């Protein structure tokens, strides 16, 4: 589209306002003051102008408010919102690295997504950015804050690790065994996902969405599908929504069971992990029977859902019993309990200031769950909340969520109709350009996708994984934790690198 007003809001309950840049901070403050959270900031290159979209979500009553700011492409600048909320400052750094939008007055305007060997002044999300120019052989230094003092030393770890895990670099400043400061450097997995969506047909986007973060395929696929349906005014009806919720809960069980075992394994109790891995394998085989894919892929698509069968309730009950046994065996071991208790405490005020979501937030006493806050179907979900904020609390939240999800799956499957593959035709009169958002509670937390569609093609897809909000909380929780407890703390957060790096 050309410069002018942004697309009309298409989704239910969503407002959008175009503002001059000078009014952004005041409006954002007002929305945040109402208890809404900054869920997403997406920059758009509309050809002859740049546009920044700020999405604020609120719950009880549910609210979705967008602020659009048009920017001068020659000198794109936004006033910083870093002083209002922490995620705002990080979204602005991302926007700077990918679009070259300068956050004016940002307290720490360092690069975030852009690695040091990226050529300066090349903004890959701008139109006409083209293929990446040759990367610099010698990279600029990446300044880590140096902690000084007697006996203080640094431990660099990664991005290549001894186990088969995703890449991330961690820089510990340590005295003795106590962590004084941790800096996590990510974005080694930046694949340009958002760029890959551009120009795809709407129906083809879901395949990509399912590959944003491998173990939350269904949740990302669903967020994408909901965003597209929101944009096109595509009503899919309650049956589709309930079958989708079923897949989502099954994926949650799969991931949580694996996490319970992995936590015990990091405390050295591998026998419990073996049991948990066997349970996970049963869930993966169930996935193959239910969706035709071991990672719950291919079931959810814009306009409908396609299941091969319903999960076997007996098998699910066995998995639930097994998960309970895993948790009991892990916590029954006094050494494991000692390792979990009081380790890496994330206080509730820190968690809410950083904008944490999902399991991490709920384990710190914050009641945030998109299934309750932004319900997509008439399913009563009572979020599991603990207030310990330590590894144990995060373990227990997962344990209880497995049980709760098994209950939800039982309800959803018993009420499911005979038809498991349902597809609604797309609405006839689609607007030439339209936008939509999809909100889904994945196993890690709230996923938000925002799409803009031009005709039949995707103009822009902005993806925010909960890991993006939760990564900054890890160093905060680790202050005064000892080095050998880091893997346990990291595992209890269970964050996605791929979902964060995109």
């Amino acid at each position, binding site marked *: 589209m050309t410069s002018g007003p942004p697309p009309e809001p298409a989704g239910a309950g969503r407002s959008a306002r175009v503002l001059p840049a000078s009014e952004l901070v005041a409006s954002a403050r007002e929305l945040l003051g109402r208890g809404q959270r900054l869920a997403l900031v997406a920059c758009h290159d509309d050809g002859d102008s740049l546009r920044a979209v700020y999405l604020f979500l609120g719950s009880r009553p549910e609210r979705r408010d967008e602020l659009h700011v048009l920017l001068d492409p020659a000198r794109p600048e936004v006033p910083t919102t870093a002083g209002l909320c922490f995620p705002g400052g990080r979204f602005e750094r991302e926007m700077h690295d990918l679009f070259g939008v300068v956050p004016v007055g940002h307290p720490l305007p360092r690069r975030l997504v852009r690695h040091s060997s990226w050529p300066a002044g090349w903004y890959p999300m701008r139109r006409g950015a083209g293929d990446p120019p040759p990367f610099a052989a010698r990279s600029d230094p990446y300044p880590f804050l140096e902690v000084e003092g007697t006996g203080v030393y640094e431990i660099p770890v990664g991005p290549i690790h001894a186990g088969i895990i995703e890449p991330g670099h961690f820089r510990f400043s340590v005295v003795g065994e106590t962590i004084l400061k941790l800096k996590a450097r990510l974005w080694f997995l930046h694949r340009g996902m958002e760029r890959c969506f551009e120009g795809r047909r709407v129906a083809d986007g879901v395949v990509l969405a399912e590959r944003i973060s491998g173990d939350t395929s269904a949740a990302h696929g669903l967020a994408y599908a909901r965003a597209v349906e929101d944009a096109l005014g595509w009503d899919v009806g309650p049956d589709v929504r309930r079958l989708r919720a079923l897949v989502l809960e099954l994926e949650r069980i799969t991931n949580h069971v694996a996490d319970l075992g992995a936590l015990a394994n990091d405390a050295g109790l591998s026998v419990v992990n073996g049991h948990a891995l066997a349970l996970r394998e049963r869930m993966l085989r169930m996935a193959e029977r239910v969706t035709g894919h071991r990672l719950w892929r291919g079931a959810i698509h814009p306009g409908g859902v396609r299941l091969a069968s319903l999960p076997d309730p007996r098998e699910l009950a066995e998995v639930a019993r097994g998960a309970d046994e895993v948790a009991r065996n892990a916590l029954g071991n006094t050494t494991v309990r*000692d390792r979990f208790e009081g380790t890496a405490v994330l206080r509730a005020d820190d968690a809410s200031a950083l904008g944490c979501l999902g399991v991490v937030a709920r384990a710190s006493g914050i009641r945030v769950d998109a299934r309750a806050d932004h319900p997509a179907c008439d399913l009563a979900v009572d979020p599991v909340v603990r207030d310990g904020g330590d590894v144990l609390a995060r373990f227990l939240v997962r344990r209880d969520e497995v049980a709760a999800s098994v209950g939800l799956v039982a309800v959803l499957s018993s009420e499911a109709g005979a038809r498991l593959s349902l597809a609604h035709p797309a609405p006839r009169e689609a607007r030439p350009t339209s936008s939509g958002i999809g909100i889904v509670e994945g196993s890690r937390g709230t996923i938000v996708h925002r799409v803009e569609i031009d005709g039949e093609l995707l103009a822009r897809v902005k993806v925010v994984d909960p890991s993006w909000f939760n990564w900054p909380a890890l160093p905060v929780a680790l202050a005064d934790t000892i080095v050998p407890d880091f893997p346990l703390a990291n595992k209890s957060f269970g964050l996605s690198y791929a979902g964060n790096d995109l």
Partner: protein
Amino acid sequence: MTLSGAAGAVVQVAAVAAGSPMLVGWMRQVRARLEGRAGAGALQPYRELRKLAGKQDVTPEGTTAVFSLAPALVAGVMLVCAAVVPTVTVASPLDSIADLFVVVGLLLVATVALVLAALDTGTPFGGIGASRETTIAALVEPAILVAVYSLSIRASSSNLAAIVRATERRPGDVLTPAGALAFAALVVVIVAETGRLPVDNPATHLELTMVHEAMVLEYSGSRLAILEWAAAMRLAVLVGLLANLYLPAGVAGPRSGPVGIVLGVLAIAAKVAVLAGALAAAEVFVAKLRLFRVPELLAGSYLLGLLAVTAAYFLGPRRA
């Protein structure tokens, strides 16, 4: 010194050197089966050693002879330990130095060599591993000394062969409160000394939690193979010593013929297999302690040793 003793000593070193990787493989296999896994088989460590021996050695930049020589020194010390610790025979020609304090000292030499090599790499992991290993070693060595000392009171000698012989003459003597306390203390220190759960986790891939593995992180190829082999020998020697201190049956003496020596090998192999199997089985149910709890465990072991000494004086059987 007898010819039989000399032959026994040679066989003893050969048995420890050749058999120790199988001991490691056996413990892993026991664990795997108990955890419901198939396991790689007891011979897997040999395959790993062969693989490592065929690989290129990488020497990190800036390291000195300390780094290059440490593996040979550690392995050499372990071979000497294998020769002096009475596993197959109590009549080794090195009997005169088969002293409790010498063996503990030798183990410490190997530990110090490895710690210095880890520091020589200049990497943080080497430093972390070295620092943790030193902390543990400082607590383990006195505990091991005190525990074995309590057993030496009966034999009126700190010579290990003499202690084993004394037990061989009167096997019932170890079934005292002192013996039991010392046994508990020894098990704990052997677990710590060989870097097993709950002190260290040899199976972990988490660099930040490692102790022994962090120290050898920079080694590769044949040097790593030597270090792995030496670690296996350390385990074999310590488990073998524990077995013979409490159940010396079958150990070869100064006048044993070839048959006696073969029987000695078979006896120690069986005892070590049972004891190590029990240790591996117990490990299944044990999680790794928080690092700062390890000193508490080792202090407890030292205390048990001290109680064993006290009990040996006050409650021990009357010596003739």
